[in-house]
C-alpha cells in the first residue's frame, strides 16, 4: 500500500484561510484604524485572549487583539513533525536562573494566535474546591479571592465549548461528568490503568482532555497520531484558534498578528490610553483604547508591565505592591519512564489520555502540604532522547542502544503542586530583544515543601510504573506549565489584580491569563485560564461603559451569559452530574 486511492494528499489551491481540513473562517476581518479609540485592546491572543476576544466582540464591543506571533493557517503552516514545529513556541530570548532554573520555550510558552492552547497536551482537569483555600486549610500559600462555586459554572461552560472528552463520572474534587465520551486507550494509558489497578488506586480513563472523541460541527474527531504538542492539524484538539477565534472574527473582532506590544501608555488620572507596539517589519504603532487587557501569560505579562514603567510607576505599571513578577509558579513535571518487555509504541494516541488525582489533596500522613497527580505523557523520539540523556546520562553508543528500544517504553508525568514564593519571579534582564525591549529574567527556586512533595510524587509514580509491569524504571526531573506573576487578591498591598482581573492601581487596565492565579493545584491550568477569561468577559460586559468612564469598582459577581458561547457549543452534550 504505497499510494492513497485518490493520489497523494494535496492542500487545496484556494486562497481560503484553513483551520483543520474543514473549518471555514470569516475573512477578511474588520480593521480598526489606530486613530479610532477602540473599547478594548487585548495583548496576547492565546488561551485567555482568544476567549475574551470572542466574548467581547459577540457582545458588541470594538476590540482588537495584538498577537506577537502569526495567525496560523493550520493546513499550510503546521507539520506532523517534532523538529519542524519550533515556530509554535516562544523562542525569543529570555534568561532563566535561580537555584532551580526552568526550561521555557517549547516546555510552556506559545506564540501565535491560539497561544499555548495550540501546543498544550489538552488535559483539562478542574481545580479542586480545596485549591481556592489553601491557606485556610493548610496554612501555606494564600487563598483565592473567589471560591470554587464562583468558577464552577464557567468550568461547565468551557467544557462544552472546547468540548472536553472524558468519563461520565469523574470522582475527584467536585465530582462531575464530561459531555463527550472517553478516548480509547493507547499503550501508555493501559500501563497507567494496570499499575494503578494493581495498587488499588482509582484512575480516570480516556480523559478529561479537550480532544474530540467524535466529530463536532466542522471539526473532525481525533485520529490518534500523537502530535498534539506540535499543533493539531486535524482540528480535533481544542485551541482558541479553532474554538473561539473564528466566532470572534465573525462578530467583528480584529486580530493584528505578528505585532509585539512594547509599552502600555499611561495618561491622565491614572488611566491607560492605549498600547504601543511593533509590527512585523519593526515599525512602531500606537493603538488607542478605552481600556487595556494584558493576556500575555506568566512571563510576557509581567515583562510588559515592567517595561511600561513611567513617572508615578517607576517600578513597573500597576506595581505599587511590588508583586508584579512575583509568586510565579511552575508545576513539578518529572517524567517517570518504564521499560516493558512487550512493545508499547507510545507515539500513538494523544499523550494525554489517562490520569489519577488520588494524591491531589493534602494528606496528614505526608511531611508536606498539598499533593500531585499522575498523568500519561507520550514523548516523540527527540523528546524521548532528551529524557534518556537526563535520566540515564546516555550518550554515544549507549544512547543509540536506548533509542532503539523507544517502542518498549511508557512514560508517566507527575504533576506536583509547587507553592507560590515571592523569590520566584520575573524581572528584566539587561539584554534586549530584536525590538530593543529588555527581555525577561526568570528566577526559580524550590523550597522545602516543594522538594519533599517532588520526592514523594516521584516515588509513588515509580511504584505505579513498577506495578504496571515495567522491568526498568528511570526518571527525568523537569517542570511543567507556568502560572502566577501577577496574582489576584483582595489586598492591593499583596496582589496585582482584584478578583475580576482589574489591576488595583489602574481602573481601566486588566490582566487576564494564567499569571493571575494565586495558587495552582496539581491540575493542568488551561481549562482554569479559559474559565477565568469567560468570567472576566461576563464582568466587563456587565459593566458596559462604566469601566471606560469611571474609576468605581463594582465587585458583584456577574451573571453567567451562556448566550455568548460560540454557536453550536453550549446546550449540547450530556448534562453534568450535580
Amino acid at each position, binding site marked *: 500500500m504505497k499510494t*492513497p486511492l485518490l493520489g497523494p494528499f494535496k492542500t487545496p489551491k484556494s486562497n481560503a484561510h484553513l483551520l483543520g481540513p474543514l473549518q471555514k473562517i470569516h475573512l477578511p476581518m474588520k480593521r480598526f484604524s489606530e486613530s479610532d479609540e477602540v473599547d478594548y485592546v487585548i495583548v496576547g491572543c492565546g488561551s485567555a485572549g482568544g476567549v475574551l476576544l470572542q466574548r467581547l466582540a459577540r457582545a458588541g464591543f470594538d476590540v482588537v487583539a495584538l498577537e506577537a506571533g502569526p495567525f496560523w493557517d493550520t493546513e*499550510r503552516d503546521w507539520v506532523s*513533525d517534532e523538529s519542524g514545529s519550533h515556530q509554535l513556541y516562544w523562542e525569543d*530570548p529570555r534568561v532563566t536562573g535561580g537555584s532551580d532554573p526552568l526550561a521555557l*520555550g517549547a516546555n510552556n510558552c506559545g506564540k501565535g494566535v491560539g497561544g499555548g492552547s495550540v501546543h498544550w497536551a489538552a488535559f483539562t482537569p478542574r481545580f479542586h474546591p480545596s485549591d481556592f483555600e489553601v491557606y485556610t486549610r493548610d496554612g501555606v500559600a494564600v487563598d483565592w479571592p473567589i471560591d470554587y462555586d464562583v468558577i464552577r459554572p464557567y468550568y461547565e461552560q468551557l467544557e462544552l465549548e472546547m468540548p472536553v472528552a472524558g468519563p461520565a463520572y469523574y470522582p475527584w474534587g467536585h465530582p462531575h461528568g464530561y459531555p463527550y465520551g472517553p478516548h480509547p486507550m493507547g499503550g501508555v494509558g493501559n500501563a497507567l490503568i494496570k499499575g494503578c489497578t494493581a495498587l488499588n488506586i482509582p484512575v480516570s480513563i480516556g480523559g478529561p482532555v479537550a480532544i474530540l472523541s467524535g466529530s463536532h460541527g466542522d471539526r473532525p474527531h481525533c*485520529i*490518534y497520531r500523537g502530535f498534539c504538542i506540535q499543533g493539531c492539524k486535524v482540528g480535533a484538539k481544542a485551541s482558541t484558534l479553532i474554538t473561539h477565534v473564528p466566532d470572534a472574527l465573525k462578530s467583528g473582532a480584529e486580530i493584528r498578528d505578528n505585532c509585539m506590544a512594547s509599552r502600555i501608555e499611561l495618561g491622565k488620572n491614572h488611566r491607560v490610553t492605549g498600547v504601543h507596539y511593533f509590527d512585523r517589519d519593526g515599525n512602531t504603532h500606537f493603538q488607542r483604547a478605552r481600556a487595556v487587557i494584558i493576556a500575555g501569560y506568566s512571563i510576557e505579562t509581567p515583562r510588559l508591565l515592567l517595561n511600561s514603567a513611567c513617572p508615578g510607576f517607576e517600578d513597573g505599571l500597576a506595581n505599587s505592591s511590588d508583586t508584579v513578577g512575583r509568586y510565579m509558579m511552575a508545576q513539578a513535571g518529572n517524567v517517570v519512564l518504564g521499560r516493558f518487555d512487550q512493545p508499547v509504541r507510545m507515539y500513538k494516541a494523544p499523550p494525554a489520555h489517562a490520569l489519577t488525582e488520588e494524591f491531589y489533596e493534602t494528606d496528614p500522613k505526608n511531611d508536606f502540604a498539598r499533593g500531585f497527580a499522575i498523568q500519561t505523557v507520550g514523548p516523540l523520539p*527527540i523528546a524521548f532522547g532528551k529524557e534518556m540523556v537526563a535520566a540515564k546520562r546516555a*550518550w554515544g553508543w549507549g544512547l543509540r542502544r536506548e*533509542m532503539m528500544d523507544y517502542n518498549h517504553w511508557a512514560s508517566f508525568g507527575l504533576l506536583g503542586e509547587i507553592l507560590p514564593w515571592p523569590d520566584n519571579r520575573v524581572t528584566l534582564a539587561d539584554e534586549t530583544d530584536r525590538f530593543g525591549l529588555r527581555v525577561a529574567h526568570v528566577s526559580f527556586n524550590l523550597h522545602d515543601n516543594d522538594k519533599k512533595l517532588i520526592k514523594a510524587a516521584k516515588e509513588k509514580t515509580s511504584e505505579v510504573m513498577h506495578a504496571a509491569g515495567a522491568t526498568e524504571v528511570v526518571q527525568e526531573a523537569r517542570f511543567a506549565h507556568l502560572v502566577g506573576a501577577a496574582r489576584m487578591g483582595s489586598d492591593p498591598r499583596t496582589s496585582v489584580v482584584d478578583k475580576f482581573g482589574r489591576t488595583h492601581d489602574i481602573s481601566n487596565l486588566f490582566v487576564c491569563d494564567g499569571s493571575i492565579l494565586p495558587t495552582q493545584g496539581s491540575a493542568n491550568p488551561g481549562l482554569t485560564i479559559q474559565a477565568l477569561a469567560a468570567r472576566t468577559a461576563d464582568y466587563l460586559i456587565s459593566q458596559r461603559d462604566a469601566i471606560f468612564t469611571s474609576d468605581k469598582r463594582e465587585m458583584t459577581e456577574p451573571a453567567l451569559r451562556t448566550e455568548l458561547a460560540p454557536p453550536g457549543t453550549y446546550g449540547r452534550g450530556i448534562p453534568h452530574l450535580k
Partner: protein
Amino acid sequence: MNPNDPDTSLLPRDAATGEPLLPTDQPGYYRGFSTMSQKAYWDQTTRDVITMRVEQPPSLHHFTADQARFWRAVFDHLIPQHDRTPEHRIPIVEPLDERLYQNRGIGYRYEKMPQDREAYRLGKQAINEEAKARFGGEFIYLPHHQQDLVLQALHDAKNIAGKQIWKQMSIRRFWQLLMQDALEAYYSHPWAWDEIGFGGPAYPRAYTRLERGEPEPWEVEEKRHEWLAPLYTVSDVIEDTLELHLESDQNNYFLE
C-alpha cells in the same frame, strides 16, 4: 575511514561471535520499515518539509570548514554512525550550523551560559584544552579512542581541564546543549525513525492500532538481535539517576 574498507574497530559487534557487524543502510530492529515509503499519505506541508530534510540538507554558513570538521568529529562520538553506510549517515553539523547561522534559540538561555554561538566557540576551546591536558594534542588529531575519553571526561564533568572556560559556562548545561542539538538533528530524520520503529507523520491517515504496541498494516514487527558496542568505545554505559528528583541536581551539578 575508507567507506569500502571500514575500520572494523569502530563497528558494533555480533553478541554471539564478537565479529564486527558490517555497516548497513538501516540499523535497528525494524528491517524493511520505511517511513518515507508512506509520504503520499502525509499532508503536503509535512511531506515537503521532511522530503527536503532528506534530499537537501542545509549547507554550511556559520562554521568555517575547520570548525565544521571539529564538530563533525565530536558528534561522531555523541551519536556515532559507523554502523551506517556512508550514504545513509544523518547530517548533524549542518542543521546545527543552520540554527546558529540564523541565531535561532530555543526560547531561553541559562544564566550560567553565554549565547549559543559563544557557547560553541568556548566549547571547542575547552574540548581542545581537555585533549591537550590528557593526551597532549588537539582533539581532531587524537586517535578515536582517546577522543572518546576526552568526551567522556566532559560527560562526567570530573577532573576537567579548561577551568577558566568552565567558569564562563556551566559544563553540564553545555553538555545538555550539545546532546540536544545532536538529538534534534539525528532523531528528526526519517532514517532514524526507521531505525527505532517510530511511525512518523500520520495526518490525515491516522493510527488505528493503539493498544498492545501492535504495528499498523504499514509498520513492521520488531525483530531484535543482540549486539555489542565497538571494542574501544567508552560510551556504551548508562547511569541511574532515579534518586536525583530535582532538575538542578540531575542536570546541573557543578565542578568543585
